[in-house]
């Protein structure tokens, strides 16, 4: 179940202040440490919320992942689907 690994990454990121900082500075480096496919890494890097939703990533995890990028709750699906990775 690949969506499991995507969700696990989001879960670990959301709980770990240091990992969040590392991720913002070096997203490729952090993502390479997780067993994800190229497409999954793209989805995460671009914060492609519609793709996360299509993969059945839990809505709460989508909310938490977008919060890492300072995206307001009401903008999660309206500004997308593709956005560049940038720190808060």
């Amino acid at each position, binding site marked *: 179940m690949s969506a499991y690994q995507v969700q696990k990454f989001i879960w670990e990121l*959301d709980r770990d202040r240091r990992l969040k900082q590392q991720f913002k500075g070096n997203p490729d480096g952090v993502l390479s440490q997780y067993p994800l496919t190229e497409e999954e890494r793209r989805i995460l890097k671009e914060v492609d919320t519609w793709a996360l939703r299509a993969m059945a990533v839990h*809505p709460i*995890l989508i909310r938490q992942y977008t919060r890492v990028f300072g995206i307001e709750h009401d903008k999660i699906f309206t500004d997308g689907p593709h956005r560049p990775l940038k720190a808060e």
Partner: protein
Amino acid sequence: MGRVVFAAGVPHVGAILIGIQRAGEKGERVKQSFDRLREDLRAAKPDALIIFGSDHFKSFFYNLVPRFCIGIGAECGAWDEGVLPKEQVDAYRVPVHQELARDILMQTVERGFDINSSEDLRLDHSFYSPIERLTPEHDVPVVPIVLNVAIAPRPSLRRCYELGRAIRGIIGSRPADERVGVIGTGGLSHTVGVPEYGLINTEFDHQFMELVATNRAEEILSGWTQELIEKEGGNGMNEIRMWLAMAGVVAGATGQVLLYEAVQAWGSGIGLLRMDPDTAKV
């Protein structure tokens, strides 16, 4: 026998701590309603406060999904969710009423509820938001009980209510003059992380609170399906399970709606409901 001296349903969105101004007059009214409830709680002189809350993928994930989990350690910390200031999060400690918590653990299992337990439960905003509004001095030890309302399969509405009823029985078996408060925390209608963000169903929220306040929870337990709850109230409305567990603790009681606001700035229907424990049928 111990007795229930306070029971209420309250919101738990982090905005009740950090979003008051953002919600203007509505936010101010929510704050004032909490202030009054805090006075009521203080006047009730509880020895412990049982809190039915949830977990938003902070303590639990798909690798481990307890339907119910009670915190039985000496104290609980808090998760960093951008709500409490970082220094406060790191130092956060709220005392647990361990004796009552352990009694509830042992006896709920005896009564057929195989609930999980944690010696080191960390709380998310579903607990600390109302704690900081109602007992900011942390002078009332808590008994935190997590209901899994986020990950399917969720415990049924009736199961949550019955858990509350079982706990009512346990309180009754406790030493004389122990005074126990209970709150159920959660939204009313709202959505999280979906394109339909912003859904607030005022009518549905009022219906829910009115049924609980008039001792007609049975109509919810037997009539409200999972599909209905999410269609009418959004995925966040699953949190009524915590309110129903609270209502189970004071089964038979009536109550009073203290406040309802459709707070668009928070994307949630916000309700405060106080039950009158003296009207409960033991």
